[in-house]
């Protein structure tokens, strides 16, 4: 019991310790490089522990019906931690003080708590710990006038989402008498007005946090007003954690047909809306936001599945999406600095070919061009959907993804233009080497995902 | 059920009467104190003339309170241009009602068994009626026996801030607004220390129920000392008292309404009895705070060595007392303690100069709060030792 508490949650403990130490460092005004190094080191240590747990097939019920470590949570946390490390390396070069690391680490901690939870109390706390630092991150060191505005919008809608989830939870609690995730899943399966209302509320809350179509309003504003590393963070890790949280709740359970219809509809709308709106964007972050809306659609699309392959498909999707987004942002930082106008990319290939090619790969991966991991991820989702007997919607989703290709390709198009006179860029004062590091790490991870698409299947089934 | 209703209605009547009455007396105490401190005679201009005679009852000026009240009741109650008439009118209610309500959780006497109240030897019939009516039901002398009393008190007293804020904000007056802002920030600042000080008490007593706390304090320490909170938690007492005075917005923490700076602070624009309500609420608050202090730190209605059966002295002597006497003694003890503490608070008012705003905040946050936290840590450690050792 005590050992489980210590060992099973060791990554969380490391992160928590990191936060405390960073707070101390901040108070003592220690050089900020120490904090960065500590951050990366802790995340690596956490990842190491997780790998060890995976290798030994460690599982534990740490707090009965509240915190459980199983393979899913280990993989999920590994994804989160690794993405955090990549993001950390990437944001080393931007002026990040201890505060930045504290906030990022807290958010990561929240994400990990979400993935550990087998009960709704810790899940809820995880969600809160995940999102709250995000709002602060958006206004931290942000000279832009729109930062606080975007942040407050995000905060308001996110809080509404929290309230929705909570109200749904209270209804579940009313019908089951406890707050275990397993009993929720069972209750949803049995149906009834109260349970239906509960699942609708919980789902809409999660949809809001994941910016699925009718609940997407905050995403473009929030993403475009934050700094690029923060945008990357919000779009990748926060979203990944929310989606994985939903997976944690629903697991491979089969949803009832009405819910499936609604989810399919919403995810479809999300894909189309995101992809169509993205076409007209001229700012990278806005484009990323709409792309993230459409990707939320794809991720939610996997919930339609009834073959029991949802978890693996989504793990892969989320991991790939998160890493790709971070890498894309890192590449964009290299290419354009903090200015997020897409016109900066015009003809950039001639100046910075490697970064341009990496960005193209990321963007094409997001578009789902084979054999890039983004395609495989989509393929796994579509595969489960079609295998669940929803061919028509799957084809519609293909069409949406096809439409999405337009704007992703637009980015590539800009970079390979040879006729446009390149915009003269302001001298970039900050050292880009860490940004490069982040981009390369991300690329490596993506290459791994591409070569071993089966990775999560192996790990989930314990090979 | 009907018996309960009767008993509790009596309790409520008593509670309100005590608060209003003692508060009125405190207005006199304050005048008198100020006179003494300023070396004046003071509070002697008001008298009650017995009709058709020339006998004037001055009663050391005690009648001043009544005169004040009647005067305010008879004044024109006009409303200046406000931001929000609704809030303006609502504010006095919010200022006074919660203060009264706080008293609901405070036990002002021990266990009352109405059936045993009347000595069957002297009044057999009356006693029989009581026994028939009430049976052997027993009541804790408390308006509402809430098992999370302290939390209720904290919660309800927080509402008072709203009254202050609304009054200041809706008045459309610079002084009011400034007063309200100061009041709000001051009250919430000191509420933190207050809460922490209370927590250390909760750790000591292990309960949130105020009556349980009082019962706990009826025991003895080392066989001799009364086990009062002030002996166990002297620092917490000081902290709590300070915080309470600040909560009351009284000197030395009377920034929100300091006459020399802000006219009357947040209730500058109020007239007649509405102004009176704010004044009254301040004095009732003294009563309530004193009652709270008495309850959690000074053994409440307990007199040392007094139990339900009578006095049990450490040397093994006992003096048996009837139930009615015990109840009476407890009630009187409580009142006396409250009165003394109230006087002490007023004493402070006339002894200490007013803080500046920044001094006040610094004192609250940088001195009181860390001290309260340290006290809590120490309490926790001691608690651990007592549990383990």
């Amino acid at each position, binding site marked *: 019991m005590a050992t489980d508490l210590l060992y099973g949650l060791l990554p969380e403990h490391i992160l928590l310790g990191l936060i405390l130490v960073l707070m101390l460092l901040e108070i003592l005004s220690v050089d900020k490089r120490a904090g960065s190094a500590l951050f990366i080191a802790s995340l690596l240590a956490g990842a190491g522990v997780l790998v060890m747990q995976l290798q030994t097939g460690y599982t534990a019920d740490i707090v009965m019906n509240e915190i459980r470590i199983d393979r899913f949570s280990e993989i999920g946390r590994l994804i989160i931690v690794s993405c955090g490390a990549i993001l950390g390396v990437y944001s080393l070069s931007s002026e990040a003080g201890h505060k930045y690391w504290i906030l990022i680490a807290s958010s990561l901690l929240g994400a990990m708590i979400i993935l550990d939870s087998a009960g709704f*109390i810790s899940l809820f706390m995880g969600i*809160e710990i995940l999102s709250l630092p995000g709002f*602060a991150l958006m206004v931290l060191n942000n000279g832009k006038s*729109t930062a*606080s505005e975007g942040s407050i919008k995000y905060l*308001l809608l996110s809080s509404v989402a929290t309230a929705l989830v909570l109200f749904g939870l209270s209804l579940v609690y009313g019908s089951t008498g406890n707050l275990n995730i397993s009993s929720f899943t069972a209750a949803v399966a049995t149906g009834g007005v109260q349970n239906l209302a509960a699942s609708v509320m919980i789902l809409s809350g999660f949809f809001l946090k994941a910016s699925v179509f009718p609940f997407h309003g905050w995403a473009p504003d929030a993403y475009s007003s934050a700094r690029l590393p923060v945008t990357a963070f919000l779009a990748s890790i926060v979203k990944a954690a929310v989606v994985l949280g939903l997976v944690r709740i629903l697991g491979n359970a089969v949803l009832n047909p009405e819910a499936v219809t609604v989810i399919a509809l919403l995810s479809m709308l999300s894909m189309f809306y995101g992809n169509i709106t993205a076409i007209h964007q001229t700012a990278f972050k806005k484009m990323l936001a709409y792309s993230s809306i459409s990707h939320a659609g794809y991720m939610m699309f996997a919930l339609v599945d009834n073959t029991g392959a949802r978890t693996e498909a989504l793990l892969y999707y989320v991991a790939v999406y998160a890493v790709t987004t971070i890498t894309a942002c890192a590449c964009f930082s290299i290419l354009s600095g903090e200015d997020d106008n897409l016109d900066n990319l015009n003809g950039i290939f001639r100046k910075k070919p490697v970064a341009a090619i990496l960005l193209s790969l990321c963007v094409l991966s997001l578009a789902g061009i084979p054999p890039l991991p983004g395609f495989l991820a989509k393929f796994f989702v579509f595969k489960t959907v079609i295998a669940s007997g929803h061919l028509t919607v799957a084809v519609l989703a293909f069409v949406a993804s096809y439409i999405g290709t337009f704007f992703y390709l637009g980015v590539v198009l800009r970079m390979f233009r040879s006729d446009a006179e390149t915009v003269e860029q302001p001298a970039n004062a900050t050292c880009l080497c860490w940004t490069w590091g982040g981009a390369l790490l991300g690329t490596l991870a993506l290459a791994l995902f591409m070569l071993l698409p089966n990775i999560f299947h192996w790990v989930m089934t314990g090979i | 059920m009907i018996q309960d209703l009767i008993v509790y209605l009596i309790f409520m009547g008593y509670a309100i009467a005590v608060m209003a009455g003692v508060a009125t007396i405190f207005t006199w105490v304050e005048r008198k104190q100020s006179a003494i401190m300023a070396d004046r005679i003071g509070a002697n201009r008001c008298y009650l003339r017995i009709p058709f005679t020339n006998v004037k009852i001055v009663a050391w000026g005690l009648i001043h309170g009544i005169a004040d009240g009647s005067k305010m009741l008879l004044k024109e109650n006009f409303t200046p241009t406000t931001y929000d008439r609704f809030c303006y009118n609502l504010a006095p209610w919010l200022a006074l009602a919660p203060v009264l309500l706080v008293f609901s959780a405070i036990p002002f006497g021990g266990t009352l068994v109405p059936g045993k109240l009347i000595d069957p030897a002297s009044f057999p019939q009356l006693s029989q009626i009581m026994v028939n009516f009430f049976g052997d039901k027993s009541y804790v002398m408390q308006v509402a026996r809430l098992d999370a009393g302290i939390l209720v008190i904290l919660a309800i007293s927080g509402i008072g801030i709203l009254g202050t804020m609304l009054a200041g904000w809706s008045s459309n007056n610079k002084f009011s607004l400034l007063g309200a802002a100061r009041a709000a920030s001051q009250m919430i600042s000191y509420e933190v220390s207050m809460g922490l000080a209370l927590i250390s008490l909760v750790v000591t007593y292990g309960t949130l129920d105020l009556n349980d706390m009082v019962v706990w304090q009826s025991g003895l320490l080392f066989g001799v000392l009364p086990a009062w909170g002030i002996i166990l938690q002297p620092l917490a007492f000081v902290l709590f008292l300070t915080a309470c005075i600040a909560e009351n917005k009284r000197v030395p923490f009377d920034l929100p309404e300091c006459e020399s700076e802000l006219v009357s602070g947040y209730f500058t624009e109020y007239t007649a009895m509405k102004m009176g309500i704010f004044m009254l609420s301040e004095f009732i608050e003294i009563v309530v705070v004193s009652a709270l202090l008495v309850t959690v730190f000074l053994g409440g209605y307990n007199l040392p060595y007094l139990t339900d059966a009578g006095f049990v002295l450490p040397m093994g002597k006992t003096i048996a007392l009837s139930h009615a006497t015990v109840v009476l003694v407890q009630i009187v003890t409580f009142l006396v303690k409250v009165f003394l503490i109230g006087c002490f608070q007023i004493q402070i008012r006339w002894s200490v100069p007013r803080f500046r705003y920044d001094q006040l905040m610094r004192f609250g946050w940088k001195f009181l709060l860390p001290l309260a936290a340290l006290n809590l840590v120490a309490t926790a450690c001691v608690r651990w030792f007592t549990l383990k050792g």
Partner: protein
Amino acid sequence: MDRYQFLTTLAGLIFSLGLLGVVLRRNLLVVMMCLEILLNAVVLSFVGFAVRSQTLPGIAMTFFIYVAASCEIALAMAIVVLLVKRRGSLDLGAHQELKG
């Protein structure tokens, strides 16, 4: 309607009220108050169910909800302070530099 149903219904009504407030009101502080109303409705619902089923998780949840709510509000206040310093207005309609 027993008292628990009453509580749930009441909670639902308050929740809808808060939701309406969040959607319709323009003043940032009012919107935040409405957020609090939302969370209070949730707490009411939890407590109601907890009392009905005589179980603990609902009670525990309320504390966590309060923690989360006040953290949210604290953060929101901080951001509002920033916003108002820049813009000098609490009206949401005045903050339209960002258009989705």
